[in-house]
């Protein structure tokens, strides 16, 4: 619950964003972010809510850890936590 998951914003509709997580599109809520969010930005998400816009310079370093975790064994606790966070984001509107 503490790890969260980063994703790239594809579009913004009011306080809801469609965000790409490793090729999977989900909706996350923007009520808690303290900066304007635009398509192309990366946000850090916890239980379905973005809590932070990740500074552009730090995106690579942030993603590297998650790339490694998602490549881990299916039973890995950290991988499961990241996948849980992905489960927290809603399916995109059709």
């Amino acid at each position, binding site marked *: 619950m*503490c*790890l969260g998951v980063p994703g790239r914003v594809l579009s913004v509709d009011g306080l809801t964003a469609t965000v790409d997580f490793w090729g999977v599109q989900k909706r996350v809520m923007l009520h808690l972010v303290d900066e304007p969010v635009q398509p192309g930005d990366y946000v850090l998400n916890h239980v379905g809510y973005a*809590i*932070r816009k*990740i*500074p552009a310079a730090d995106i690579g370093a942030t993603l590297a850890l998650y790339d490694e975790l998602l490549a881990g064994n299916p039973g*890995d606790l950290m991988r*499961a*936590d990241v996948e*849980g966070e992905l489960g927290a984001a809603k399916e995109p509107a059709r």
Partner: protein
Amino acid sequence: MTAPSPHKLEFRDPLKAKKLTARLDELVAEVGRDPVSVMHVCGSHEQAIARFGLRSAFPKALDVVMGPGCPVCITDVPEVDEAVALALQGVRVATYGDMLRVPGTVKSLADVRADGAAVEIVYSIDQALELARSEPSRELVFFGTGFETTAVATAAALLNGPPPNFSVLSAHKYIPPVMEIVTEMPGSRIEGFIAAGHAATITGSAVFEAFVRDHGVPVVVAGFEPLDILAALVRLVELIRDGKREVVNMFPRCVTREGNRVAQEQLWKVFSPTGGRWRGIAHVPNGNLRLTDAWASFDARQRHRIDVSRLWDFAPPKLLGQCVCGEIMSGSKSPRDCALFGKQCVPENPVGACMVSSEGTCRIWHQYGGHLDLRSVA
């Protein structure tokens, strides 16, 4: 060999890792005490330390212990009882998956679900809201657990207008006050804290300044990469060596001094801090987050008569008396000191909460091993 196989010690930047571990060795030697004890308060930090085999790279005299950083684990027995009682009373209860198997006095939510009670697992409060909306004639209680990072989501969801059949049973907890309690415990040898990066994203690093001033123990905010953790430890031991009482933010890519004010504003609109017990640890003044009076109609404790006394007619499981989860979370024992660990207490059949949650010390050590000496493996 049946022990869980350790992950290979791999860093994105091995050279940097080597420099940091060498520096850590020097600094701990300069402090000259054995052990130098520091505490982190985050399940994700423990996962990273264990998963990447970091302890094997720490100097022998550096003791890095996990404190009360697992939100599921510190959810107290009476709080689980409240959720269990509600489910037994016929209310739908939705909660995060890790809460399902956490033992109450006699039963967990998983137990009553197996008996037919309506207990739903959700990944987010918004999924609980959808469940409530899908059956408007039936009451749904969201059993909200977790620290700052999940509490702000609960706050935002309530401010966003929940349906009338929805309420929250808050077991949300607030990290800064428990650091004071653990530091002041008799026999505590904690000389410094590593603070959790993402909780601090919300609160800001400034939240620790009063603690550092009042308790004389430095705090370093850290990220979750192995290198982040190593760098934070280097800085922390440096502060300890120099006797400096400071808050240092080593995770500036996510954390500012002020934190996320938008999220803080919503948090304190909905919640107020109140004292309460953290499972196995102590009563923590201001450590629990309860809904403010303005939100009474969405507070499950105000809205429902929760009858927990019906649970007390049964005897608690005998093994629970031997569980040392509380001592583990306050840093005075490790899972190796527990007679049940890995024997009667395993992830498939947990006795204590620390073996239930993926963020619990025992569960993490059970998966990755806690203190493997990778120097003999590498």
